[in-house]
């Protein structure tokens, strides 16, 4: 087992009180697994990704533990985490387009970063060029400034840079959202390839595009309002979802060829609850067609089938 997250709680501090963006999340990711994290906007996906690598100064670790390969990740301690970053855990941020210092040539940037970790740039250069070639970038890009590269190129540079030290875990946050369909496919397939080549052991792919994540992930985890709703192998989530939220979500996705006249798809009525004062019990209750009295109580996130966990009172039965 590579990553083990148990009962992780991370809040955002605001003047109006804490936003409980992650409110008791437990899951694990196996070695070699690509796990997709999906959910509506604001459900806490990025927070989860960030928590595993770097809490920004507005985030607060409230509870829970994270272990990687059996070793505890001190996620609340910024300094102590430095030992793990880049080498054990790494990140492709949502903002890959602006993640590179605009006034440094890319080669220099990499060299600076490596030097800071005590690694020789010259020694790493062959591997670096090999990986750049793998994602279709010439060695020349190292001489370029970020502004001279297109969005897709920057995205791939960040991908190579983030995985340069073969981290055990890579968090890829919305890496394809800003791209064209064709580039999107190329980048997504590269992620899989990197896993296959062992450049990264496991991966957390955060996105809101279920169709996309279905293409590459082994497991899909559905989040709702700061909690986990369902986690299962991707085929299972897409074909036999158990949580009513997952079901409605999948049902709202039009397929190429689906026509308005033929079959009318429906959305999920209502909006997710605010996370500052989330309701007691099941958080989907207000929008759930199946809601009943028991839902006033928080349903546990339990395994209902092999590798299939759901947090719903109705799902187990």
């Amino acid at each position, binding site marked *: 087992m590579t990553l083990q997250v148990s009962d992780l709680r991370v809040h955002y501090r605001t003047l109006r009180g804490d936003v409980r963006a992650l409110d008791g999340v437990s899951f694990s990711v196996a070695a070699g697994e690509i796990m997709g994290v999906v959910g*509506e*906007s604001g459900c806490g996906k990025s927070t989860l990704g960030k928590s595993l690598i770097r809490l920004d100064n507005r985030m607060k670790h409230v509870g829970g533990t994270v272990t990687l390969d059996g070793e505890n990740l001190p996620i609340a301690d910024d300094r102590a985490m430095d030992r793990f970053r880049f080498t054990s855990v790494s990140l492709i941020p949502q903002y890959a387009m602006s993640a590179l210092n605009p006034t440094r040539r890319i080669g220099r940037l990499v060299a600076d970063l490596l030097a800071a970790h005590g690694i020789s740039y010259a020694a790493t250069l062959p591997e670096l060029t090999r990986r750049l070639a793998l994602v279709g970038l010439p060695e020349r890009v190292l001489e370029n400034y970020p502004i001279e590269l297109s969005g897709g190129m920057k995205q791939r540079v960040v991908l190579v840079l983030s995985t340069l030290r073969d981290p055990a875990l890579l968090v890829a946050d919305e890496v394809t959202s800003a791209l*064209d*369909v*064709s580039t*999107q*496919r190329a980048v*997504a*397939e590269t992620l899989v390839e990197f896993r296959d080549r062992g450049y990264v052991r496991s991966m957390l792919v955060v996105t*809101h*595009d*279920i*169709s*996309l994540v*279905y*293409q590459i992930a082994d497991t899909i985890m559905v989040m709702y309002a700061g909690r986990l709703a369902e986690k299962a192998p991707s085929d299972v989530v*897409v*074909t036999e979802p158990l949580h009513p939220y997952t079901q*409605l*979500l*999948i049902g*709202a*996705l*039009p*397929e*190429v*060829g*689906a*026509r*308005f*006249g033929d079959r*009318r*798809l*429906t*959305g*999920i009525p209502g*909006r997710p609850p605010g996370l500052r004062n989330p309701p007691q019990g099941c958080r989907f209750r207000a929008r759930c067609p199946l809601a009943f009295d028991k839902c006033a109580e928080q349903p546990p996130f339990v395994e209902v089938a092999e590798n299939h966990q759901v947090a719903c009172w109705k799902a187990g039965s």
Partner: protein
Amino acid sequence: MLRLDGVWKTYRLGAFGTRELTAVRDVSMEVRAGEVVSLIGESGSGKTTIGRMVLGLASPTRGSITFDDVPVGGLRGRALRGYHRQVQGVFQDPFSTFNPVFKADRVFALVRDGFFPSVPAIKWRRRVEAALEGVRLEPADVLDKYPHQLSGGQLQRMLIARALLLDIRLLVADEIISMLDASTRIDVLNLLGDLKTKGLGVLFVTHDLALGTYISDRTVILRAGEVVESGPTDEVFARPQHEYTRNLLAAVPHLHTRWNEPVK
């Protein structure tokens, strides 16, 4: 109803317009009443530019755009206002279509200021409520609120309601759902579908092929400002003629089908 004939749009850039950028090249197409035409293309292919020209927000460099055989480009003042009574637009990002400083229902007040200054307030309010109900919004839910207090879906529906206040015949919908959550998207699409059946013509701009097919009758595929393929939606998707269209279709992620598997 709406016709584009050999439309070109060239932007002048740089000092005193010394550099040129052709965003739209020789585009011809047509939107009829009660028909949804989707305009599909990757980023920068000129979709928005076409939409803006149709709305009279930009004028074509060459070629003509006519609405009921009246050229749109030459409309000024009163005539342009008359045109906007019939043709309206809804844009990609609902949050930036509403001025965040003001309450969301200001968009209705603006319509009244611009087109119906003589309608009394009470009567106008009733018409707004009717329009909101037309897009399946509860007036009490959305009136008197600031944009950020409303969801993207609600906002997009308000914009459509705003357009409906004007008895429009053509709606330019520029990526109106790309910023919405999957679950809300479908609501907006369904609404457009309903309006179409009531005779509204829609120019549906999108880069999402899956959504393009859901309500559209005909599809125009655009690449670098040029039309590469157009025809009835089913046909274009089932039998893409152009290499570019085929590549595009192949890259679309399908639920239930992986990229490397044949499409079911």
